[in-house]
């Protein structure tokens, strides 16, 4: 292996870029894409087939596109109801967590007061408490508050569990805003809260988008919490509803494939729109 790269490496500034190895790289990349996309393609094309086709040749492609499975799912209120539920839960979670997170991060980043370090440490420690560990008492708490079977029972705990990462990302952001800006604002007669409202929020937009996307995706894909909290099918979110649909119509594989594909599409659209932010946010979340 060393042999073919070494002589070229000596002459070229960017080592390992020889023609042969570049071909190998493209080949590996192609295989990689195939492995990644095959299941996704199978889900989508499987929804275009009939159950008879799926039984005789489970791995084949649709003989002719049969849209009835997709149209059935799209024509039923069940799917759209779940999309709406998921959207409400995700948007409510995102908006509130960003608002609460910004306020707390502003105070933690720019005020000096006793207990500041302790409160910051408390939120940071929250990163260590995944929802799995707290789910049983959390369910009892939500039930005792009378929030089961409503989206509020899902949204409020999601806000709480999204706060640590939001604050940990936002505090350095807000701390980096130069003091001179605040001083200039003070000279112009702006108080601290006005400074927060007029200057900090606009300056924090990139950070806000990052934490907002993280909270939105976590809520959109969330499964365990709705599984515990939501028992009424009318309040199901998309992940829970997709699973319920698949057990209800387990013999109708083609329809299950169609439903599953459709439930995947909103996340894929959201991802393709915000791809740069998501990738940057995740690397930033770890490194920043």
């Amino acid at each position, binding site marked *: 292996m060393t042999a073919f790269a070494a002589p070229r490496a000596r002459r070229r500034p960017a080592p390992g870029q020889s023609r042969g190895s570049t071909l190998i790289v493209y080949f590996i990349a192609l295989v990689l894409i195939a492995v990644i996309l095959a299941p996704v393609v199978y889900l989508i094309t499987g929804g275009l087939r009939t159950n008879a086709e799926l039984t005789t040749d489970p791995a084949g492609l649709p003989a002719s596109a049969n849209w009835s499975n997709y149209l059935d799912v799209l024509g039923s209120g069940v799917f759209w109801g779940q999309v709406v539920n998921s959207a409400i839960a995700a948007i409510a979670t995102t908006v509130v967590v960003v608002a609460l997170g910004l306020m707390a991060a502003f105070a933690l980043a720019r005020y000096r007061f006793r207990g500041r370090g302790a409160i910051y440490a408390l939120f940071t420690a929250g990163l260590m408490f995944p929802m799995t560990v707290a789910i049983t008492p959390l369910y009892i708490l939500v039930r005792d508050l009378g929030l089961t079977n409503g989206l509020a029972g899902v949204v409020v705990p999601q806000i709480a569990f999204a706060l640590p990462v939001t604050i940990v990302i936002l505090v350095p952001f807000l701390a980096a805003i130069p003091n001179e800006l605040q001083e200039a604002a003070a000279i112009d007669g702006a108080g601290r809260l006005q400074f927060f409202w007029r200057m900090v929020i606009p300056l924090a937009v990139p950070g806000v988008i990052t934490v907002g996307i993280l909270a939105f995706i976590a809520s959109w894909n969330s499964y365990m919490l709705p599984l515990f909290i939501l028992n009424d099918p009318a309040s199901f979110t998309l992940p829970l509803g997709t699973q319920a649909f698949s057990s209800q119509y387990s013999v109708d594989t083609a329809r299950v494939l169609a439903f599953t594909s459709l439930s995947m599409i909103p996340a894929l659209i959201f991802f393709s729109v915000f791809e740069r932010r998501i990738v940057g946010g995740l690397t930033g979340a770890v*490194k920043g």
Partner: protein
Amino acid sequence: MATVSQHLSSVRPVPADESRGGIPAPAPDDADGRRVPADRARARRRGRASGERVPFGELALLIGPALIVFVAFVILPVVMAAYYGFFSWSGYGVPTEFVGVRNYLTILGDPDFREALGHNAVIVVMSLVLQGPIALGLALLLNRKLRFQSVIRVLIFVPYVISEVVVGLGWGLMLQTNGAVNGLLENLGLGALSADWISDPNLAIWTLMAIITWKYVGFAVILFLAGLQGIPDELAEAAAIDGASYWQIQRRITLPLMGPTIRIWAFLSIIGSLQLFDLVWIIWGQYVSSTAGTSTMATYMVANGRNAGSYGYGSAVAVIMFLISLVIALLYQRFVLRRDTAGAITGGAR
């Protein structure tokens, strides 16, 4: 990506205390936030910058809501789990039947729990062993000028964005006895290789590992790519001039400099593996997962806690899970991350 990283890197000249896990400080002031009288004039002259003492009401308004929600729905449930764990309780009314550590003794003596713990251990180790080298290899491959590079990067991340439910249902259908994977093998003339991927206890855990790798390797690749881009090209160029081969450069220069990124990824992977629930629950469900050998601590907790109506018992399992995760996390921080938290967390790689 660009904007976020730029902003994050603009934060980079961090105060010294942040690198030790402290909070990034605002403008330098005296340590405890109170100003000695002699300083007062100077402070007033500097204007109303952040170093000023603030009214309690304003602080409460800003931090209060977040703190209340966080304490009520994150800290309190964890504390309550520790309390309920000492009771035999069906979840209604006030827990009264105090049983001491009996729940804990039952859990630790239960072969099902020990099996689940063993599966978690396998998942932790195999996730590192499988995803680490694959992701590192792919990141090295993709960290060069390629056509369609950005397309590949986006695609590699797709499985990570798709929900666990969709991934679980999709793979579950494909891996059925008469599913697409066996069908494909038959079409290729490899029918002899077809198997009961999900229900065969000898295979199931490997099936799970394959699905986990498919779903999460993209995350590792993206992290590693970010780390690789922080390594200056000049180092590789200098080494190449000194006669180092491509593989020598990767081995001696790239890999050591990637250390902090790899260690942070490993930490996230370990914690995630210990908490694994969704995929197993969706594909195998409560009953099959224990016979097929894919049960985890979390599925054991839900099956024997909430689904059995034993909330005290379920809480005790949660406490054990929490303690195991905490101990592993602390040991990892102490022995693995300590020397480079400065580099990894505050972004030495960029």
